[in-house]
């Protein structure tokens, strides 16, 4: 018996070690190496296109303070404004949907996810159509009604922050709602019994209790806002408002390309984001959620009486502003020859869709995006499952390092990571720059935190004893993974697959630097169309992208009905 156990253990340990080492090397290569190249380039004060740099120095960093201080200030102002708005939106929605008896809670909660399908890029394009100065629909109506000047202007700090907040509001909502759901309602009930009003209860009991969750969400959202690119690109440049991401973008487009300046700004942004996310993890790890006790409780929402319908309207208002209005504006624009909200002047046509669909590049870009989404999600989820298992289930020394490594891209703004990959792969003698292979590698790398975080939740829910049973019965590690762990993970894997698929199809930040003439993807192509082909055609393209993703997901849900039912 002893002999049998010893023999069975030896190959298992080897397999784990070999696979772990291989994954560590591959992930390390994908995650760290590009950043090393970026650091090198940020210190390049010679010919910006020389590799390795001809001269080193910190001139590029000093130039940030001398020449780009306004860019830094703009970035901070917009990120702070957008974070405040996103947290207010997220907190309000989370409170309504978790702590009150608002009608149709489950369905409303599903509706709150819709902005995730919309993407900030599509949202920014839509809000440019809705609230652009002079030509925006709102201002056209205002002028038509006899108003003078512009009623709204989205090309401002507030406008950019507003659009960013609308779409990051969903993230804040999910994070804060999770915190609220874990709160013991008896504490609120005690306050009510003692005579506190609903508002006072919310402000003096609910808010302090969920404060760690709100603080965590604020840090996370602020870090996301700092690295935001789409809204700043579409709405900031027409308003002469440049932020770090758009300044990086501009630096690489100029000739000679200022890679040094772009790299230094990218790394500065990375350091701040890294600090924010480290702080966020500490806040979360500190375990301030004292409301999660061993005592069983059942969430008991507050009875809001007639106010429940007002709160219901607030939720619908969010969906209206973040989804319905932008989609409607884009549909209306895409069906016109020249965008106008004055119906008497409108010339309706399907030509924009005809043009968009007839453009080989659009079809190719959409096809490439779907293919990359499918491929990266399929391969990525399998690799990520193994990573998650290594991190949370294995006893291997250094599994903490694996976790750190796979979560690292979360602290790197997508645009900066795209720049790092660009610079790395221009200089690595493997000719994949400008091909879909590099985009696939980039997508896999930047999706690692999303996939691992999603899968980790599922892995931790599976009782270890099930796996131990398999091992006791003589199953090897590979056999155990195939017959026990993976089947149990199936719903979680599908959820991760869907998230990664969607994130890949809508990816913009990393793609803008990595796509080439023969490797186009849809989000940067929409940005290109926005810059050069007019609003109407761009609106058609953005809608084609949105509906293609929705259709692909609907088909997938249909095909995997049995499994996906477990997700909902």
């Amino acid at each position: 018996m002893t002999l049998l156990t010893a023999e069975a253990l030896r190959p298992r340990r080897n397999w784990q070690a070999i696979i772990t080492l291989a994954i560590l090397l591959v992930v390390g290569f994908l995650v760290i190496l590009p950043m090393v190249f970026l650091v090198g380039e940020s210190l390049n004060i010679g010919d910006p296109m020389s590799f390795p740099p001809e001269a080193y120095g910190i001139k590029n960093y000093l130039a940030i303070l001398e020449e780009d201080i306004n860019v830094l200030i703009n970035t901070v102002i917009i990120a702070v404004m957008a974070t405040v708005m996103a947290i207010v939106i997220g907190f309000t929605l989370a409170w309504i949907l978790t702590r009150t008896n608002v009608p149709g809670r489950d369905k409303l909660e599903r509706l709150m996810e819709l902005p995730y399908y919309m993407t900030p890029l599509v949202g920014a394009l839509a809000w440019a159509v809705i609230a652009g100065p002079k030509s925006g629909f709102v201002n056209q109506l205002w002028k038509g009604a006899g108003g003078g000047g512009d009623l709204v202007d989205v090309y401002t700090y507030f406008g950019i922050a507003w659009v960013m907040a609308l779409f990051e509001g969903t993230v804040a909502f999910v994070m804060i709602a999770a915190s609220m759901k874990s709160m013991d309602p008896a504490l609120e009930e005690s306050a009510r019994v003692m005579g506190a009003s609903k508002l006072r209860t919310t402000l003096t009991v609910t808010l302090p209790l969920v404060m760690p969750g709100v603080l965590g969400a604020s840090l996370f959202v602020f870090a996301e806002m700092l690295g935001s690119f789409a809204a700043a690109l579409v709405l900031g440049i027409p308003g002469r408002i440049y932020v770090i991401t758009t300044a990086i973008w501009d630096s690489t487009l100029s000739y000679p390309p200022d890679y040094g300046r772009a790299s230094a700004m990218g790394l500065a942004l990375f350091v701040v984001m890294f600090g924010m996310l480290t702080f966020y993890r500490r806040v979360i790890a500190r375990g301030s959620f004292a409301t999660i006790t061993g005592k069983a409780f059942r969430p008991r929402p507050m009875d809001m009486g007639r106010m429940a319908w007002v709160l219901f309207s607030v939720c619908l208002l969010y969906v209206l502003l973040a989804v319905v209005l932008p989609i409607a504006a884009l549909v209306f624009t895409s069906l016109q020859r020249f965008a106008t909200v004055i119906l008497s002047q409108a010339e309706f046509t399907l030509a924009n869709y005809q043009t968009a669909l007839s453009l080989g590049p659009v079809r190719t870009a959409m096809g490439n995006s779907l293919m990359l989404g499918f491929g990266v999600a399929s391969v990525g989820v399998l690799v990520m499952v193994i990573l998650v298992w290594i991190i949370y289930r294995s006893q291997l020394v250094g599994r903490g390092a694996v976790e750190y490594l796979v979560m690292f891209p979360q602290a790197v703004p997508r645009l900066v990571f795209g720049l790092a990959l660009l610079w790395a792969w221009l200089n690595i003698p493997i000719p994949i720059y400008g091909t879909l292979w590099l985009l696939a590698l980039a997508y896999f790398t930047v999706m690692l935190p999303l996939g691992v975080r999603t899968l980790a939740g599922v892995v931790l829910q599976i009782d270890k004893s099930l796996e131990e049973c398999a091992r006791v019965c003589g199953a090897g590690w590979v056999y155990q993974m195939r017959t026990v762990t993976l089947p149990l993970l199936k719903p979680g894997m599908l959820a991760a697959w869907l998230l990664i698929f969607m994130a890949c199809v809508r990816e913009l930040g990393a793609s803008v630097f990595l796509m080439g003439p023969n490797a186009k993807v849809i989000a940067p192509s929409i940005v290109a169309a926005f810059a050069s082909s007019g609003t109407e055609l761009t609106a058609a393209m953005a809608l084609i992208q949105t509906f293609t993703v929705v259709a692909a997901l609907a088909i997938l849900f249909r095909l995997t009905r049995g499994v996906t039912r477990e997700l909902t």
Partner: protein
Amino acid sequence: MRKSGWVAAAGLGSLLLLTACGGSSTSNTGLGSTTAATAAPSTGAAGSATAAPSPTVGQTATTGPTHSSSPHATGPTAGPQPSSKVGVSFPPVGTTIMVVQKSDLGFVLDFQKRGGYVQYVSPEMAAYKPDYKSQPEGFWTWGSVIMGGIAYNPKNLAAADAPKKWEDLLDPKLKDGINVKVSNSGLQHGVWYMLKPILGMDYFKKFGEQKPRAFDSYVQQYGRLVDGQDKVIMGAQYSGYIEFIAKGAPLAFVFPETGVPAVSETYGIVADDPHPNAAQLYMDWFLSPIGQQALAEALLLHSPRTDVAAPAGSVPLKDMKLLIPADWNDFEKDRAAFAKEWDRIVGARR
């Protein structure tokens, strides 16, 4: 740095322009020449063109792009056209060729110095002035001439109030109402380079106080004039004006008496081109009167060839007072300083 590495790096600006922003002379879709990038006159930047399918025995064809003047045309797509006879077999459909097209001669000269172009002396180059070709000949050649003046929308700005000369752009009434191109535009650099000695650096300092907004393409610039977001374009690309006028846009174009700065759109075959023969065929076609006429009709650009008519409805080159840099090497050296200063003027830097 390895050759392929820096060639790729050098080309990146134009590739990005093409693929992501539509480039300096971008028209229409912005995806432009996606399949056909560089060779494609529609894109204004770099890329590749798709060569024609192999003709069956006894047939002849050209690799020439087919052009469309549709407002939303995607630019040229290569296809067989029964015109001039070419005595070589053609590569299959989908063959990628790499011909760089840039309006920024600073980039072009630097790219040549770094060995980015392959030399090919097309027989058609004999029809081009020596000033319009690389030294030595065959690395790059002017494919069109673009010029920048002043444009405005008469519906939003009365002709009496409209600027007539460059100095009029400093009128405080135009503050916050002017748009320009971004600093990576070759045409904008040309405007800066040619006007700076005439109007002085002080002019541009004052111009910065007008708070101009910078955009990637003329489509955005003219679009903002049409819908009233801006009043005037400084350095307005003339071909864009002709295009918008043809679509019925209410625009007016001013040729200031000082002159209109002009730069070239320059074409050359990339050194790493996987299909150099196909690229040479493309250049032969493109530089010929047929190719140049197609370009003029499709993208409304003026050909440097004297035997090719100006785009319909446009002022011929001979009737314009063009301000063209005399020393392109000095122009190239000025590139980095211009980029920084222009970024300051448009608010992208302090």
